[in-house]
């Protein structure tokens, strides 16, 4: 027995040494980089740089890895776009492989290897957590192209066959926010609520930049038409948890939220809104069919343009951009049709007007993250250092506010706006 205790003590000591090694970490360097304004490709033209030999469209084999299946609005959005783009390009359906329900674990690597094994030339993955495993597979198979949506590492990884893509969805969410603000204004004018009761609720998945950028742009959109609006945000810590999303939405409603939006992938939040009769701004696609009385509008990323672009690159034997960001102009950022019942009068014209201003190049141009439209701790930001170059150290290094504008999705396609601004309460 004594011997045992000695052994256990010795093991504990080794563990302590191992943990002690944690302590010797490097101190971060203080140098701040300027934002690279041309870091991301934003159009659909196939480049000129060669990468491998051309492949006939009838011979190319493409694979898609998705986190959940079509029951998730997020993954359905990818799967539908993938099917549409490959069908439009004329790729035989036997050469289009979709692997759904692939977790954000080494299962992603294994699936990617399996797709390579089946002869795929080009492999897409759809979830943030897939990234490191896609990168691992890309390094092992340099002759296959790997494209990862929402990732952050491609522009610094230096792996030639690994690519990231996203879209300026913060613009879409801003527009959806305008529609939400119009609805709140309508309620205030009708006298159902006072201007100070204009409180929105937001069901978020995980507390990181992609979600924070999304809800902040949504809030700023609403605030641009309804200046007194406030917002409460609560996270579910899951991308897909129907019960938790539904509960969170109900909780926010009981907190006095008059309108709900979400960035999570099930029908949980919209359905809870429909039940409670609270208007809902959705995401990833219209939920009007199941929520006819409360659905206002939904923003979504249309991935078909990117799929078409990437496949065209491989067919032509050209290099796919390391980092690509779709826009309203490329057809990547879309709003669905407005809900017939819940939408406030005049919303469509107002949204169209704001959309034109977002795309303008003259003095009417507005920026979603204009630093003059929000404060942090009561102060206007003049500089903000964000972790644009994801080296795995979580150390921010790039100033992203230039001349009073926070430039989102410019240094890399994936969002890096992770500031907690005034007016938004995290629960």
């Amino acid at each position, binding site marked *: *027995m004594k011997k*045992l205790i000695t*052994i*256990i003590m010795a*093991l*504990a000591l*080794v*563990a302590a*040494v*191992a*943990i002690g*090694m*944690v302590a*010797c970490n490097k101190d971060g360097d203080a140098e701040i980089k300027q934002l690279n304004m041309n870091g991301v490709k934003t159009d659909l033209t196939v480049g000129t740089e060669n990468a491998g030999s051309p492949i006939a469209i009838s011979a190319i084999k493409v694979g898609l890895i998705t986190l959940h*299946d079509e029951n998730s609005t997020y993954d359905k959005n990818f799967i539908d776009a993938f099917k549409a783009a490959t069908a439009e390009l004329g790729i035989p359906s036997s050469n289009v*492989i979709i*692997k*759904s*329900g692939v*977790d*954000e*674990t*080494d299962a992603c*690597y*294994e699936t990617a*290897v*399996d797709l390579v*094994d089946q002869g795929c030339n080009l492999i897409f993955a759809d979830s*943030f*957590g897939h*990234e*490191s*495993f896609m*990168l*691992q597979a890309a390094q092992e198979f340099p002759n296959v192209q790997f494209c990862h949506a929402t990732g952050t590492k491609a522009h610094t990884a230096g792996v030639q066959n690994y690519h990231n893509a996203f879209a300026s969805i913060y613009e879409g969410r801003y527009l959806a926010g305008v529609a939400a603000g119009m609805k709140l204004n309508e309620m205030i004018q009708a006298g159902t609520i006072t201007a100070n009761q204009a409180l929105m609720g937001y069901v978020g998945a*995980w*507390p*990181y*930049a992609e979600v924070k950028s999304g809800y902040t742009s949504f809030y700023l959109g609403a605030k641009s038409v309804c200046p007194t609006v406030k917002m409460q945000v609560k996270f579910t*810590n899951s991308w897909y948890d129907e019960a938790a999303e539904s509960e969170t939405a109900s909780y926010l409603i009981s907190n006095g939220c008059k309108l709900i939006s979400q960035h999570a992938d099930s029908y949980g939040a919209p359905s809870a809104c429909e039940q409670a009769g609270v208007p809902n701004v959705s995401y990833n696609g219209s939920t009007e069919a199941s929520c006819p009385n409360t659905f206002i509008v939904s923003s979504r990323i249309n991935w078909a343009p990117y799929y078409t672009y990437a496949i065209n690159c491989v067919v032509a034997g050209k290099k796919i951009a390391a980092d690509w960001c779709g826009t309203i102009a490329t057809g990547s950022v879309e709003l669905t049709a407005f809900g017939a019942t819940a939408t406030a009068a005049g919303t469509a014209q107002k949204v169209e007007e704001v959309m034109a201003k977002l795309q303008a190049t003259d003095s009417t141009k507005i920026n979603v993250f204009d630093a003059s439209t929000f404060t942090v701790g009561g102060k206007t930001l003049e500089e903000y250092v964000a972790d644009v170059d994801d080296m*795995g150290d*979580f150390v921010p290094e790039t100033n992203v506010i230039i001349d009073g504008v926070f430039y989102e999705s410019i240094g890399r396609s994936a969002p890096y706006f992770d500031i907690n601004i005034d007016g938004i309460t995290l629960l």
Partner: protein
Amino acid sequence: MRKEFKHEPLFHISKRMDISTAQKWIIRLSAGILAVLVCSLIATIFTHNFGGFFKSMGSGTFGTAIRRWNLLEKLAILLCIALALTPAFKMRFWNIGAEGQTLIGCLVSAICMFYIRGSIANPLLLLISFVGSVGAGMLWGFIPAFFKAKWNTNETLFTLMMNYVAMYLVTFFISFAVRSGSGVLGYQPFGHLPLLQIPGLAPTGQKFLLTVILVAVLVVLMYVYLRFSKHGYEISVVGESVNTARYIGINVRKVIIRTMLLSGAICGFAGWLLVTGARFTVNKDLVGGDGFTAILVAWLAHFNPLGMLLTAFLVVFLKQGASQLVTDFKIGKDYFGDVITGIFFFFIIGCEFFINYRINFKKRTVKAAASSDTENPSEGADEPSAEAPTLPEAEAASEEAVAANREVE
């Protein structure tokens, strides 16, 4: 006499005492063949392609070099966990915590890889993660064993709950270490097991080869340990009867704790192999139920380490083949794979019943004799008299045998 037969059921079950090894294997083999047939028929309903079932199952496991290596690696890990369970189960210590004991080993390996990174030489990092993982596995085995030995707590519940503790520790580590808030610990580039080169077979180096070799060595060691060592004998005696063990002077507490330390250590080792040799990351589902499947593997092989090779192969083959079937025929989610695996094990486990028991159907001759009794007494006269006393006698005899067997146990 004759009255008893009126109430004789359609069939009755009796314990088999005298089944030969050949007969056992004939029953197992026919169960296997029957299972394949049923699976293929059910698959045909969905695929409309009878041959496709066999083709997919084969190609999913043996189709390409990558799949063959995947098969070997998965087989090695499952076998390693099954080996870890064997001494505990032989001792009748129902350790259903292999999942947690392996996972905690995985966690410690991943922690070492994540925090130490490239700051020290790779062999040293591997050594640290090895000692840490095995130690953590031992600790996870020791805690329930200590409570069992000291206060006779229920080890089944205890080990089961330790699984959840391990899972939540993993979740805690990830939320603590991964500051992006995405809840995913990515691929870790440092602290991998080295690639081994084999001329001809894997000239550029095979990452799973070392794992396979290490587990193969472990199979032999465990076989020798259980079969020929004093410890192995003590484990058997404690398993058969604690009182006998006490009587012949075995320190039962010591054997329980020592065996669980060994069991946990091998589980931790499996976790180390899993993370440093194949997965290079950790998440709460990394072991993926292998800790429970290993119980099945060990039990079906009657705790014979060499037999486990076969049962573990069967499990991995089914999983990999069924997942290929799902992909090839676009049946949708992986549920169908589970259906195939489920049907298979239904037959394989079910056949053990027929090995241990005999089903005696109501003898037609008896019935015929009873009915013909009035019509034709001369013909049935000698038959029932020869048959009648034997049945109840046999039943009584077999009941006695069962009772005797229980006592032995």
